[in-house]
């Protein structure tokens, strides 16, 4: 079932996508499926485990389900400090 979601890109992912957010129509059931679907956009060849995802401003696991209207935040490997 097709959903319309907002995807936000950060740091390198934003640079690769050329936008910081966009509206996406997708059949992806989980965050990891969406990540794979959008590979050309965020341009990551990094293992999924090095990246993080948040849905509606909550950090979640990659197996988290995606629902229509969600805001999905895709984080490349972090480097605080």
């Amino acid at each position: 079932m097709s959903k319309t979601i907002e995807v936000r890109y950060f740091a390198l992912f934003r640079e690769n996508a050329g936008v910081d957010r966009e509206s996406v129509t997708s059949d992806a059931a989980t965050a990891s499926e969406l990540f794979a679907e959008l590979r050309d956009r965020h341009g990551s060849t990094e293992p999924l485990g090095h990246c993080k995802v948040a849905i509606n401003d909550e950090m979640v696991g990659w197996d988290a389900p995606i629902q229509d209207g969600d805001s999905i935040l895709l984080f490349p490997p972090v480097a605080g400090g």
Partner: protein
Amino acid sequence: MMKMVTDPIQPEELRRALIDPAAGAYAGFEGWIRNRNEGHEVLRLEYEAYEPLALKEGEKIIAEARAKYPVLHAHCVHRSGMLEIGECAVWVGVASAHRDEAFLACRYIIDQVKVRLPIWKKEHYTDGHSGWVNCERCAAHG
């Protein structure tokens, strides 16, 4: 308490706020911008943060530290934006009755902050290139 700032961090002011008559120990940590990383000469560092979640995750880390170690106060401040060599990017301060828990809580907080907060840094090198730290393999054309 977790804070995100864009202006320079003021360690002395932050440290002072932790002074407590019941505290016998204070441990502090600061991450400074250094002029070299993995063989590259660094000119400056650009920090990008997603503030709403950095704050939320930072508060969670501090709560974990407080649950693990009996400390009186534990604060962390992270800066974002363009930082020059020698500037302070992150500050952690912990006050407690005894030194053991001050050191351990301080260490726990900075270790977790470095791997869990949605913060990214781009190194700008003296040779004109730049690169996202920890992200060598992220690039589509890597």
